[in-house]
Each structure stands twice: as C-alpha cells, then as structure tokens.
C-alpha cells in the first residue's frame, strides 16, 4: 500500500430513502444503526417517520396514472432494464447481501443472481398476464364481453425481514409489473440492499414514484399506511403475526385489499403468479357485436 492510500480518509456512503425518484433523508432527521449478522456496525440507515410514509404515498399516487397507463410492453422493457442495471452492480450487491445476511460470497452471489432473474421473469409477464387472467366471456346476447385485469392502485408492502434483497425484489416486482405503484418498508434489520436498490431503480428509466423505499420500523409506519385512505392494498409479507393482525384490522376501514403473510421457505423457488394476481382488479366491458341493427343491418 502506498503512503498516499494509507493516509486516505474513508468515504462512507450515506444511505438515504428513495421517494418520488429522489433520495431524501428522513423528514424526522432520525437514523438507526445497522449491523451485519455478527453485530459489526455497517452504516446508519434513515429511521423513517409516518410523515415520510405519507409523502411516499403522495409520490406513489402521483406516479400511478402514468405507470398504469404505460403500455405493458413498455413496463416490461423497464423491468428488464432494472435487471440489466443490477447486473452491472452485481459486486456491490453481493457484498451488501453477504454482510446483511451473513452469507459466503458464492451464496450471496447466487441470491443476487436469483434476484436479477426475478426481474427478468416479471418483465416477461407484464404483457402476458392479461391473456392468462383476462379474456372474452361467453354471453347470451349479441355482445362482446371482455374481462381485463387492471392494477389495484397504490400498494403498501412490508418487505420480508430475513431475505433482505431477493425477498424484497420478489414482493415489489410483481406489484409494479401489472401497473401498480408501491411504497415498501424494507427489512428493519437489514435495509441496506433495499436502499441501494433505489439507486438502481433511479437509473433504470423507472418513473419516479413508482417504487418508494423506506427504511425503519414497520410497527411505527405500518398502522398509518394500513389506515391511509389513499392506499388501495397492503402486502403484509414481512409483518409478524401480532402486527399483521393489527394492520389487517386498520386496513378494513377503507376496504383495502390485504395479502396476508404466507410462509416462504425458499425465496428462490418458482414464484408463480399469485403475487401478481393479488393486486389486480377485473374490469369487464360489454360491447355490441354489430348485429343489432333494426333493419338487419350489421351496423
């Protein structure tokens, strides 16, 4: 090591939230210490307040029109772009995931690869989900009757606590693939991979506000998001049973869609479609076929 590098000061990274396409600190000014699996200090992460959560919902609502109105093809391209960007920063995420979850380099590498592949998987689904869960319905009349899936709206996600990166990607990718926007509370214990993901999303053509990442306590922000009148659904993936029950009760007030926590042993397994269909509504339209004319005209 040369003399100049030996005396060089460390440049620590300030982890920040990702809200509305920007990287703010917590409105409250609070941070908390994040340590690795052995208890060694890694960094300070923002300890978000309910006002950060409120701002994130506003950003997500603002982004919803554009994102849900984008073509499915365009959404697929952007999700694929996220995978491309992640691939370029693979080393960083291998290190962060390894530190956060106490994994060896090769195991952390496998987790990051699985997360990248997960983006590709959902990128492919964006323009195919409509054919699977929508379609033409047979009706007894001269009508076309078509059902199409529509996004639910602004979805709040409590990210899995243990799988800080693959688990996070596995819960937010299906939500945004179908046109929803999301406010996610990252794993409280290991939020750093999630906060770094925000930097990837910001450079992936993803419109600001489609994904909003908060770090902090799910127990503090969760009740306010669950009772928020402008949040349409909540995914309780990372909530413990007591919190999940409390949030489901709070969410009942405005008829939010609630996805209860489901035990997941292995986040790298085939995710299936259930996480996408959980946040879709079905729109059905009737349209005359054209054989209605009184004079027998076909139009």
């Amino acid at each position, binding site marked *: 090591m040369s003399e100049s590098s030996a005396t060089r000061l460390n440049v620590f990274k300030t982890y920040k939230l990702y809200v509305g396409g920007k990287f703010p600190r917590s409105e409250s000014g609070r941070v908390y210490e994040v340590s690795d699996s052995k208890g060694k200090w890694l960094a300070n992460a923002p300890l978000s307040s309910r006002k950060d959560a*409120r701002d994130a*919902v506003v950003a997500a*609502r603002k982004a919803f029109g554009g994102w849900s109105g984008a073509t499915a093809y365009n959404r697929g391209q952007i999700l694929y772009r996220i995978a491309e960007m992640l691939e370029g920063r693979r080393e960083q995420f291998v290190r962060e995931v390894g530190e956060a979850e106490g994994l060896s380099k090769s195991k952390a590498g496998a987790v990051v690869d699985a997360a990248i592949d997960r983006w590709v998987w959902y990128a492919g689904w964006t323009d195919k989900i409509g054919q699977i869960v929508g379609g033409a319905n047979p009706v007894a009349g001269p009508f076309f009757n078509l059902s199409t899936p529509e996004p639910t709206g602004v979805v709040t996600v409590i990210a899995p606590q243990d799988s800080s990166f693959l688990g996070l990607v596995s819960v937010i990718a299906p939500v945004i693939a179908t046109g929803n926007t999301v406010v996610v509370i990252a794993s409280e214990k290991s939020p750093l991979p999630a906060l770094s993901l925000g930097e990837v999303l910001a450079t992936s053509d993803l419109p600001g506000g489609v994904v909003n990442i908060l770090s902090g306590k799910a127990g503090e922000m969760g009740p*306010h998001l669950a*009772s*928020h*009148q*402008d*949040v349409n659904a909540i995914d309780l993936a990372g909530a413990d049973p007591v919190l999940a029950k409390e949030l489901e009760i709070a969410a009942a*007030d*405005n008829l939010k869609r609630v996805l209860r926590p489901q035990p997941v042993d292995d986040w790298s397994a085939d995710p299936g479609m259930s996480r996408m269909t959980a946040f879709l509504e079905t729109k059905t339209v009737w349209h005359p076929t054209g054989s209605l004319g009184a004079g027998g005209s076909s139009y």
Partner: protein
Amino acid sequence: MPTTLTAFADVTTSDSALRRFLHGLPGVDAVGLEARAASLGTRSIKTTAKAYAIDLAISMIDLTTLEGADTPGKVRALSAKAVNPDPTDRTTPMTAAVCVYPDMVATAKAALNGADVKIASVATAFPAGRAALPVKLADTRDAVAAGADEIDMVIDRGAFLAGRYLETYELIRTIKEACVREDGSAARLKVIFETGELSTYDNIRRASWIGMLAGADFIKTSTGKVGVNATPANTLLMLEAVRDFRAQTGIQIGVKPAGGIRTTKDAIKFLVLVNETVGEDWLSNHWFRFGASSLLNDLLMQRQKLSTGRYSGPDYVTVD
C-alpha cells in the same frame, strides 16, 4: 376622501407630488424581507392550534374559478362546495366567498341562495387590465348590478410601470365610485397589483400605498394568471403596508394573497405571517382572504386526518 386621510391629502394633488411621496417611502430590504418571511414559515403548528388554523383558513378562502371554460354548472358546483365544503362533516365552516367572472355572478347568486357566502367578481378587464376606462367601468357596474358583494379589480400595470402613478390612483378611485349600488351601499373593492409583474419589492410597496390612498378595502397580490403569484415575502410586505397605514390613518385594510397557495402547510405559514405582522385584528375573513381553489381540498383532507386519525386521500374530496 375620508377625513382621516387629510394627512395624505396633499400627496395626491399632482403626479409629481404622488411620485415624490412614493419614492420617499423607505426602500425594501429584499434579503431581510425574504429571511423574515422564511423564518416565520418555520413555526410548527400542531394539534388544537392546527385544527383552529385549518378551520380559520377554510373560512378565509375565496373559492375561485376563473377559466375561459367556466360553465354555469361548474359555478353552481363551486357555490355548493363553498356552502358545504365537506358533506361528510357538517361542522366544517363555509368559505368566505366564491370568486367568479362578472357574467357568472348571477349564476352564483342563484346557487348560493342567500347562504352566508359572499360573491366576489373580478372586473376591469381581468386579468390583463388592458381596456379603455369606459369598458372597465361597465365591467364593474355589471358585476355590482348582478349582485356582487366584492369587486376584484386589476390595476393598469403598464401605467404604473411607466411611472404614471396618478393615473393608477385615479383608476382605483373611479372604480371605487362604480362599486356604489343604487341604495347607497357599496361592494368592497379588492385591488390586484399583479406583484409578479411589478419587478421589485419597492414597486410592490408603492403600489400598496397607491391602493390604500385611493380607498381600496383590500389589497391583493395577484391574479393567479402569471408565473409568480402570492409568495410569503410579497404578502409580508403588503401586510407591513396595511399595518403602517392603519398606524397613520386609523383605517384598516384587508390583504388577500392569491395564486400558488395549494397546501395546508402554505396556508398556515401565511396565517403565521398575519398574526406576527398585523396581529389578531386581521385574523378573520373580513380582513384576510386566500384566493385559491385547490387549497380547499388539501385543507379538507388535513381536517379529515385530524378528526379521524387516518390519512385521507383525493378520493374523499370533490374533483373540481
């Protein structure tokens, strides 16, 4: 001219006397003004004080629609909202007024049906003010005859910026006379300076004094039709003007910031400015107004948050 204004009687006798007076007003310390406005904007207003401020702000709103596309239906909807801003909570106060174009005054009057909400009408070739005096007078008389309680006039910024101060003064005097109804009562006159077009804070101070000397009941920042509308700094400057004017003449004049105030947080900052600059005498809708349309929805959402404990959303207020 009211007798209390005799102290200033000589300043409006000629263009040069008025210019001498206006240019003799102390210059505005722009940095100090903005710093003062910014520091007053940092107050934290919470819980019961916030609830009070929200209700006060709602009661001070001139609920406005000034679009070329205004229809009678839209004016009726606006009037209904002014009377009953939140149908889910009848304790919500009414707004101070609805603010419309002169041809919509009759529609608004019918829709309000005697409710305690004033009808304000813009006049004098709003928003540009580029019309001949007879046109401006006819515009004003039409609005008053149709039942407007308040007239929002614009000054001729061209004349003001060209230095023809007495012409600006005489215009306001003339319009003020046109606000008098047949029975002798008069519509209250708000004078819009369009501060965004006046270039300097010194000009805003001078315009405020012209308006006050000419007998304005309210001085108002802007039309909402230009890039820069009400800001805390220019509103603070106008509040200082009405404070100084009352100290010297005993006459109280209202202030109305308009345009660009969209959130509860902004509105509360303005209320803090009022309280700290001119005091509680102005903290009522007779003396302070907000010219706004989307602000009301944000106030209602914040009000719902305070009363239910849940964050509200745009689905729970009307789309205007």
